[in-house]
């Protein structure tokens, strides 16, 4: 598995774990209304890549337990063949002593931008980066925006937000 394939498999696994299509991992681009004050989050061009966080998250997973668990999860995901579905595979992972906690950490990374080491049982170690925070999925799933990073216009909160599927594409 070369680096690109590895990332692709990781994204495929991530989508199935989070329930959200990879295309929705990209930040919502609402054009020019991004607050100019928040410069470190990255420029617009960089924002359009859905996979900027993937290598960062893979690096964290590689650093846990010599990277054996993530290697096994990716190898088994890559080897999956019909009629087996990835959902069945993940159900298997969830019952596994090491892969279960690993999968939960992957979900928390994408949803919160926070790294919870798989053996720490909910003890958070750190927010991965401000980019990971503002692009985390939980805000999209609640049809809102990250606290402190609205990109909305004055008064938008008095109207019902756009539908859930305008925030994320849910995997089947």
């Amino acid at each position, binding site marked *: 598995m070369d680096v690109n394939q590895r990332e692709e498999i990781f994204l495929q696994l991530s989508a199935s774990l*989070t329930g*959200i299509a990879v295309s929705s991992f990209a930040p919502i681009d609402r054009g020019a209304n991004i607050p100019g*004050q928040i410069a470190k989050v990255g420029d617009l061009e960089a924002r359009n890549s859905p996979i900027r966080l993937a290598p960062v998250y893979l690096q964290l997973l590689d650093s846990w337990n010599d990277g054996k668990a993530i290697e096994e999860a990716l190898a088994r995901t890559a080897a999956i063949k019909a009629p087996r579905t990835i959902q069945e595979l993940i159900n298997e992972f969830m019952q596994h002593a090491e892969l279960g906690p690993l999968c939960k950490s992957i979900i928390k990374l994408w949803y*919160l931008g926070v790294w919870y080491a798989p053996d720490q049982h909910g003890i958070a170690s750190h927010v991965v980066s401000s980019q990971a*925070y503002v692009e985390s999925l939980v805000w999209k799933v609640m049809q809102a925006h990250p606290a*402190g990073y609205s990109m909305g216009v*004055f008064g938008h*909160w008095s109207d*019902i937000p756009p539908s859930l599927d305008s925030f*994320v594409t849910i995997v089947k």
Partner: protein
Amino acid sequence: MSKNETVYDVVIVGTGISGAILAKELGGKGYSVLLLEAGVPMPHGREALVENFFLDIRKLPESPFPDNKFAPSANVKDLITPSVRDPSHGYLDQSDATIPFGSTYERRAGGTMWHWMGTSLRFLPNDFRMKDTYGRGTNWPIAYKELAIESRREDGSSYYDLAEDEIGVSANVADQTIGNPKDGEPLYRSSRKYPMPAIPLSTVDQFFKNGVRGMKFDGLDVWHYATPAGRNSRPYKNRRACAGNTNCVPICPIQAKYDPTVTLHAAFNYRGVFAHFQSIATRLLVREGTNEIDSVEFIQYGSSTEKSLSPPQIARGRVVVLAANGIETPKLLLNSGIGNRHFKNGNIGRNLMDHPFYIRWGLAPEKVYPYRGPLSTGGLDGLRDGAFRKDRSAFRIEIGNDGWRLPKSDPADTLIDLVDKNVFGKDLVLQLNDILTRQVRIGFELEQLPDPNNRVSLSTHKDAAGIPRPKIQYSVSEYESKGFAAAARLTNDLFARLGIDDKSTNRDLVTTKEWQGGKYDFMGAGHIMGTCRMGISSADSVVDRNQRSHDYTNLFIVGSSVFPTGGTANPTLTLAALAFWASDTIDAKLKGK
């Protein structure tokens, strides 16, 4: 001790809103003003502070603001550790507190209002005469109409008007006078308009507003209203309109919410206004043989990480103003009394008050879409005044737009709960969406009566600059406990009426009151009041109705430490109005009137 012969017209300790208003008002009249600020100066931008918030996993009120070794302050981190009562730990010495004091503050240019909510309610007329009307607490030596109605400027502005214009409050007078005035006393000047129209109600507010139509509680009408807010509903004084970042606390990323750096910048446009930052006031020095303050002693530091304290220096002023806060101001006064015969007023530091903040939360029967808009845009009113105040605390009810962020660190906790139950994939998305879009939270801010046993004194433990840390004694009385019980009863009525599934649980906070079988978790509201209260004489108070010390003719104390009682309104607007009042008194004094 270095000699400095410069004598300023006014020396002000503290650069929060009170100090900033005084500097701007008096600087604008041509006086020389020196501000002393213990914390760091204003930053050039707020990007780094916002970044600190993004990167702090705890998302606390102090998250954006780095710890300062030489200007430490009360903070939430100290309250959520088991060692809250260990006096060698943290900043406040809470070893003798019956219940730890839960409010915190910032020591930095602009003060704690960096992370205020923006709520800009006026007090009510009866808040100023609790003793006369209800036989509770004490009376203020001033009346509502002196702040709200009487003209103080050529255009007819009252002190409340001036404060609302300075902060930039968005509200409509008509919304604020529903049900009032019960006794015919006007709440506003007849021509009064807020500087900006009201902030639109959130979808969460609309759910409550529809639900409480016709609701009564103990015979009182309950109605929903839009909260007056120090947030822009349109561009105002070179700041943009609110974009609904849902982050008023701890930091507005676009400064649509007012903070005192706005007023400080305006003050620094006057050539007579100066400031020393990273300059910790240590003592007030009395001019021997007089009842006047000669000067403020202070020490400076170059960097908060190095040992680099300066020798004591002196700032001389014809008038000295203490504008620190309800804990730091009495601390400075009490520290000035060590080793000399001065500052023996027994009321300094006593009658510490807060608005004990009791929250309840649940799931609405329909999607209400929280986590959008300012943190709060409305509340339930009708419960801030009435004959029940003879018996129990009044309260105002804040409606949160932030789901369960306060009780559960959400949205993170709900996500983690589901994931740890092996929920993943599409189920996770749908369950999360269902829960997070239906979360509601209300909060009761209770009036707390003054009690001389609730107090700030000096700890035997010292901070890194060698200054005694504040020691706190604090509790809540039966009066407030009855208020908690009424709040709990009202919540049950309200949630039943609106079909809200109550999810409130006891959270084992260090600040929990048990009373008559009930357990009431509450938090500090950040409203530190009462420790240098105003009154008739030094027998019962520290300052007079003009906020001038009873004991020293050129010493003024401003801020919510002068409040004799706390009412139910967030104190900022009232203390800002009082700062304008103090500026007029000081102007008259300096003119020799």
